[in-house]
């Protein structure tokens, strides 16, 4: 071994020895594994994320999303226990009945929507945090927001109620703002539902996203009252498009489709048409688990935010993320794909092209 190699070995050994033991206990890791924490509760968290951003939009203050890294959500509770500097709070879901830091559950019959939790979730909830539940079709998830400054809880409640009211009134649209894809997990994942133009502007300003001002209203297509489009330059050139639908025609359809973006560019329409016939497939897909709801039309993919694992599937399908072998196998063997009439799978590209030839529903 050369002197340099010796030195490298010494440096790495010293560095390794200097790393303190991980405090992540067996039961934490085990529980996360059992519940597939890594496959995420993404969609619900996104929904909870929109609550956070709504709070920002409502001028409540600067909100820090915590636990946005999905694999951290469950484990950070224990990991950060005893660390007063931490702002990480649990995100879990009601399918985890024995979660040891179980928060106050939403009653099973709670309607879909966003709820601020009036109680502290755990002793780890940092002071000044707002705890927001997102109740989905089948699950509930919570996230916690650290709010800087002395913001009365009532203000948070009011802001959330406002958002909730908009959502409930179905004057909805959605912004799925995939900033800087394909890095899904760490991106600014903002799903804002029911945000209006002013909110969006304020939101953009608040979160200080570069070039956020390039999100501009465009002529709405029939059925839409307002449509916004973000310049692809905000994201990765030619790979992204941001669209906000505000209207009644589409409850929530997040569009992040290269194909659709290309179609839009070709047609010069500047907007996406209402979806028309689409296929909704629900199923379980291996490790991705959970109820998926994926919709697509001839124009491309869309998906419902309540479908948590559809996020994974969608991104794999669109080539936004490279599937691992496990993900790929799960995806290609899942009822979601297997039930289709026409499926063109291009393994070499790790992308899927699914062609809808009529209504197909696969239940699993």
């Amino acid at each position, binding site marked *: 071994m*050369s002197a*340099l*190699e010796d*030195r*490298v*070995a010494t*440096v*790495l*050994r*010293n*560095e*390794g020895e200097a*790393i*303190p*033991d*991980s405090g*992540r206990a*067996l*039961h934490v*890791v*085990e529980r*996360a*594994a*059992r519940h*597939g*924490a*890594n*496959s995420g509760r993404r969609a619900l968290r996104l929904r909870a994320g929109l609550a956070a951003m709504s709070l920002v939009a409502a001028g409540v203050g600067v909100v*820090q*999303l915590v636990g*946005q*890294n999905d*694999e*951290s959500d469950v*484990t950070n509770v224990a*990991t950060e226990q005893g660390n007063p*500097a931490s702002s990480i709070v649990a995100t879990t879901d009601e399918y985890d009945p024995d979660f040891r830091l179980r928060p106050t559950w939403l009653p099973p019959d709670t309607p879909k929507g966003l709820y601020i939790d009036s109680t502290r979730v755990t002793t780890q909830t940092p002071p000044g945090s707002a705890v927001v539940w997102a109740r989905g079709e089948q699950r509930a998830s919570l996230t916690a927001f650290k709010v800087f400054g002395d913001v009365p809880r009532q203000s948070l409640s009011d802001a959330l109620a406002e958002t909730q009211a908009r959502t409930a009134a179905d004057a909805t649209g959605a912004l799925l703002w995939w*900033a*800087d894809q394909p*890095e899904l*997990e*760490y*991106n*600014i994942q903002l799903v804002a539902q029911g945000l209006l133009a002013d909110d969006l502007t304020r939101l953009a300003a608040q*979160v*200080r*996203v570069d070039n956020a001002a390039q999100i501009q209203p465009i002529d709405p297509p029939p059925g839409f009252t307002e449509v916004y489009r973000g310049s692809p330059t905000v994201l990765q050139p030619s790979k992204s498009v941001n669209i906000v639908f505000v209207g009644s025609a589409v409850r929530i359809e997040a569009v992040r489709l290269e194909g659709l973006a290309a179609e839009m560019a070709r047609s010069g329409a500047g907007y996406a048409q209402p979806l028309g016939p689409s296929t909704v497939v629900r199923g379980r897909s291996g*490790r991705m688990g959970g109820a998926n709801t994926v919709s697509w039309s001839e124009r491309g993919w869309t998906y419902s935010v309540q479908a948590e694992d559809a996020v994974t599937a969608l991104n794999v399908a669109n080539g936004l993320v490279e599937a*691992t072998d*496990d993900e790929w196998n799960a995806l290609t063997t899942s009822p979601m794909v297997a039930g289709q009439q026409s499926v063109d799978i291009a393994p070499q590209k790790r992308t899927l092209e699914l062609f809808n030839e009529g209504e197909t529903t696969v239940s699993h």
Partner: protein
Amino acid sequence: MSTIATEVSVGNQSSNDSMKFVAESFESVYSRNWQPLYRMATLLVNSRAEGEDLAQEAFTKWYVRRETIQNPDAYLRTVVVNLCKGRYRKRATIGRHAHLFDRPNDAEAVQEPLLDVINRLPPKQKAAVVLRYYEGRGNREIAAILNCRPGTVRSLLSRAMSTMRTEVER
């Protein structure tokens, strides 16, 4: 205590013709692998928090497939290294948007210049370096983990050493 541990078994023995293995208890695999994997991941990504997350993700992957994995230790190590490589790709994005989340960067100030150089190596080179000089693994083993040929490992290490030599002598 571990509920999964109740599924215990003898581990690493083929239980039937379908190549399913009786999974070793979670507790056993954890106790043997958790800290080493966490440390290796931390070295690779230069972040304790991420190191823990990645190590945990490896355990989750193993758990899902535990009945088909004969050698959990090797599987976990390979998964961690691959996850770390993947995490590198996200670094640029994280960096660009870190200010939005005000997340603490626990990549502590590097005191040792050589470590700084190591941390700036391309992901695969760094992985090879850590596996060789921290874990003490041979070329064939590293090749298996990195899913490449032993010759490629030699090349990766050679290039890494060349870079380090140049940087250190600068």
